[in-house]
Structure formats: structure tokens, C-alpha cells
């Protein structure tokens, strides 16, 4: 057959096709594929249905946000960070606001910090709930999708009440947030937390304890600790591989050092470990939110507002732990109202780059699981 003489698509390592006993072929997975969670294109080298090599192709939703940033003022830039990782827009907002605060040398009032931490942790839970539901659906369990979205909707309602939007918040500002939380905020959070505690047990019964689910995730997509570190993986992917590193704990920002929480770590770095780490992270986030609710202070929510934000010449760096890993923001200011250069180090990009390491040797159906447990957000990869 002529297929044998096909040239390898770009990106693949040289293949020793002569030694292969069976015929290898190349297959596009995506850009329109429900398992890739967006417009991600993976080119696979397959032997039957065994994955031999994976080459990701990026750029389908590239919007040049870093270049756009140079033509927008600092305040306007905050709304662009919503569109990096749209499932953790509060945390992205926080990252940029912290960089601006460093540049201006301004602080945040106590209540402002509490609002920030609580919203960020709620969003971490929200993001993980979506991931949990989608993971279930990727593996054929539609029940998980509906159950995950039920609780997620309650958190989304809180966000809608606090800032008016459900996904692209644009809520935090340098020195605090754009508005105070409404009076109904704390009671609503309390209700959600109570519901979530029961929900996590339900999830345990539905998916975690399910033998079929475990069979499909245990030992699938193993990423060793060394590889995870050398690829620059962060977040639950790194912790699932056994490295206890969390930006909130090891490099605390905002007021995270005041709260008592643990950093869950996986043992072997397979899909099930990444799953367990995220499930435990939700429980830890609930813990943080509860502690914050007990000591939620009164007072101003934002320090003095400037009419124009001009940042003195220099470079400023801040990093936040989003639901997917470390988001780094490197900002070069030249004294004007707009940044000279703004670089985002997005977590999903590094996490995706390890996919070849994890997927080789498994079936295509396992690749879907691996992509799902990486928890990729494609606009975060492309920016």
C-alpha cells in the first residue's frame, strides 16, 4: 500500500518504519474534537490503536493578547487576562493586579484581600467541578457531567451576583476589587459550602469508587517526577507526580500564609493520582473558604483609586497558583500608562508539552483520559 511511503508530518521524530511489523499511520485528532476541549490539534502516529507519538499543533485561538497588551492601559489589560484561562479569570485578574501593585507600591486593605482569596478559592472549586464533570463525560459517564454542573451553577450564581458576569469577571483592580461584595455574599457562600461537602461524598460514590473508572485511570498516563519537573509542569499535574509544590504554600501571595490547608500529593503520577489530587484540592479549598468566612473583616475593600495608573520604569513579576498551575506575569513598564511588554507564563502550555511523554504506549481512548486529566484550557495555551 502507498500509505507506507507517506512522509512523516512535521514535528515527528525519525521513525524506523522498516522494523515495524505492523503498518503505522498518522491521524489528526482535532481541531474539532470533543475530547480535546477546544481547538487543539494533535497529530498522532498510530500502530493500530496504540499511540506511538503525539505532536500537538497550537495557535488556532491565538489572539495575540500579549501584543494587544502593549496598546492598552493597565486597567484595560485586566479584562484581557479573563480571556487567558477563562475558568480561572479571578486568579488571572489577581496575578496582573499584584504585578501592578508591585509597580505602584500600593497595598490592599484587609477586606479586599479576604474578598480576593475567597473568590479565588471558590473559583478553584468551580473550575475543578467543571473538570470533574467533563472527565466523567470524556470517559462515557454523562451522569458526572450533570452532577458536577449542578454544584458549579451554585458557585457561578455567587459570581454573577458579586460582579455581574459568570465567566469573564474583570473584577479585581489594583488595590482591591472594583466593588464590595453584596450583603448576601456570606450566607450564599455558607450554603454552597454545606452543599459541596455533601457533594464531594457523592462524587466519591459516583466516580472515584467506581471500579470501571479506576481501571481506566490507574496506571494510565504515567508522568514521572523528573519528567514533570523538566517539562515545567505545575499545579495538580506536578503534584500528581509526587512533587509537593504549590504557589500558595511555597511562595505565598495575598494572605494565603494565614490559612491552614494542606497540599495533596500523588504517589505515582498516573491519571488516577492527578484525579485524586484535584478532588482533595477541592476539599482543601473549602477549608480555606471556611476559615476566611469566620474572620471576614469589615472596612474598605479597595485602597486609594488613581485616576491614571502610571507605573515607574522597571520590570515586575508576580505569580499566582491558578486551578491549572502557576501563572507568571512579567511586566516591563516604561513610565507611561501602558505596559512596554507583558508576558504571561501560562500553566496549560507547559502541562500540554508533557503529553507525548504520557501518552506513548497507550490506546487512543486512554489519550482522551490523559488530555482530560491534564485539564487543558486551549485559550490559555495559545493566548
Amino acid at each position, binding site marked *: 500500500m502507498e500509505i507506507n511511503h507517506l512522509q512523516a508530518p512535521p514535528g515527528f521524530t525519525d521513525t524506523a518504519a522498516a522494523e515495524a511489523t505492523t503498518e503505522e499511520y498518522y491521524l489528526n485528532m482535532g481541531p474539532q474534537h470533543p475530547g480535546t476541549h477546544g481547538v487543539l490539534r494533535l497529530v498522532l502516529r498510530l500502530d493500530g490503536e496504540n499511540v506511538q507519538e503525539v505532536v500537538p499543533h497550537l495557535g488556532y485561538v491565538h489572539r495575540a493578547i500579549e501584543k494587544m497588551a502593549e496598546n492598552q492601559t493597565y486597567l484595560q489589560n485586566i479584562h*484581557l487576562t479573563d480571556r487567558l484561562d477563562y475558568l480561572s479569570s479571578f486568579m488571572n485578574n489577581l496575578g496582573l493586579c499584584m504585578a501592578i501593585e508591585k509597580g505602584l507600591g500600593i497595598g490592599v486593605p484587609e477586606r479586599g484581600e479576604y474578598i480576593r482569596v475567597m473568590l479565588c478559592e471558590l473559583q478553584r472549586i468551580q473550575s475543578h467541578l467543571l473538570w470533574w464533570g467533563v472527565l466523567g463525560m470524556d470517559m462515557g459517564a454523562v451522569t458526572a457531567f450533570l452532577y458536577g454542573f449542578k454544584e458549579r451553577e451554585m458557585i457561578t450564581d455567587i459570581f454573577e451576583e458579586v460582579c*455581574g458576569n459568570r465567566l469573564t469577571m474583570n473584577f479585581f483592580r489594583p488595590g482591591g476589587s472594583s466593588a464590595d461584595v453584596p450583603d448576601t455574599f456570606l450566607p450564599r457562600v455558607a450554603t454552597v459550602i454545606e452543599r459541596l461537602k455533601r457533594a464531594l461524598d457523592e462524587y466519591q460514590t*459516583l466516580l472515584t469508587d467506581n471500579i*470501571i473508572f479506576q481501571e481506566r485511570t490507574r496506571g494510565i498516563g*504515567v508522568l*514521572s517526577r523528573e519528567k514533570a519537573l523538566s517539562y515545567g509542569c505545575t499545579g495538580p499535574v506536578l503534584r500528581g507526580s509526587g512533587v509537593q509544590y504549590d504557589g500558595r504554600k511555597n511562595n505565598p501571595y495575598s494572605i494565603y500564609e494565614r490559612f491552614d490547608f494542606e497540599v495533596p500529593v500523588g504517589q*505515582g*503520577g498516573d491519571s488516577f493520582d492527578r484525579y485524586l489530587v484535584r478532588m482533595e484540592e477541592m476539599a482543601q479549598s473549602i477549608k480555606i473558604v471556611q476559615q476566611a468566612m469566620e474572620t471576614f473583616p469589615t472596612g474598605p475593600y479597595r485602597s486609594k483609586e488613581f485616576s491614571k495608573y502610571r507605573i515607574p520604569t522597571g520590570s515586575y513579576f508576580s505569580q499566582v497558583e491558578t486551578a491549572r498551575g502557576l501563572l507568571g506575569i512579567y511586566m516591563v513598564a516604561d513610565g507611561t500608562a501602558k505596559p512596554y511588554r507583558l508576558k504571561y507564563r501560562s500553566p496549560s502550555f507547559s502541562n500540554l508539552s508533557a503529553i507525548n511523554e504520557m501518552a506513548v504506549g497507550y490506546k487512543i481512548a486512554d489519550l482522551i483520559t490523559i488530555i482530560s486529566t491534564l485539564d487543558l484550557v486551549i485559550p490559555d495555551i495559545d493566548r
Partner: protein
Amino acid sequence: MIEESIIKKHTVLSEHAAELLQSRQSSTVKPGLSLSQYLYKIGSGFYSLLKGMKLTGSYFVNPGKIVTQPYPENRETLKMFPRFRGRVIMVHDEDGEHSCTACGLCEKACPNGTISVHATRNIAGRKVLGRYVYRLNQCTQCNLCIEVCPFDAIRMGHDFELAAYDRDSLIFILNNKEGRG
């Protein structure tokens, strides 16, 4: 940056990972399951499935509070939160007057060029608002224009059914009687 000392201190790895990696390499020769193991696996799989079904079944017979809303049917009772960001509208009082002074702060605050404020002069020679153009097709609902307005002349409306067949029908002149264009 991850320091090596932190990694050494916290790493909990793991012969488990090495084992998994090894089993992956030798996955071509999988040891066969004995019949009892095989039956046990089927049985335990079914049992865990039934446990999940028990949960879904309990929700089926006892739905409790229904969180989903039948959307088009509940249009009359559907109420958005006060801060909901639909689209920009201009506040008009009973006499049809607005408080916009055509200062243009919102135009400057907008990241996307959504707003154009065209000022004009009235008979007395004072600067007043001529036309307030709002392009919904470029708007990202970021709320910056509302925050920056010193007179509270504009605010976010609560309409959310904003789809249209034609891009041109998404361009509004806000300073008319209703403030909605």
C-alpha cells in the same frame, strides 16, 4: 522557581511510579487472569456501578430543589441580579433627560472602541451630547465605562437576549428617549 531542597524535602516518590513505568514497558505480555479473578472483577465492577445507581436513583425518586430553570417559559419571572452585565444603556428620567455631559471618559476607558461620544453645541453655545454611539458587537461587558462615569449617566442593562441576524443592528444610539437605542 522550585528549589532542589524543597523538592527533596517534599517528594514522596515512590517505587510505585517506577513499577508503573516498568509495567507499561512490558505491557505487551500481560499475565492472563484466572477465572476466579475474572469473575471477581466483573462482580466488583457491577457492585460499584450499582452503588452509583443507588445515588442517582435516590435523586430520581426524590428530586428535592430543582436547580435548573425552564428558560423560555420563565421569561416573565426571570430576574437578573442587580449587578448583571447585559449591555450598556443610558439612564433617562421621566422627562426623557439624561445626565451625560459628553465628557468622553467612557470612550477613553473602553478597551475595544465600543463607545463613540459625539459632542455638539446647543443654542447657548454650551457643549452637550450630540450622539452616543454604542457598538454592542465589539463590547466585552467589562464594566470599565460604567465605573469611570462620574455622573452615573450610563449603566448596565439587564437584557440578555442580545442576538441579532445583522451586525449593523447591534450599533445603538443611546441618547434617545428610552436610552436603549
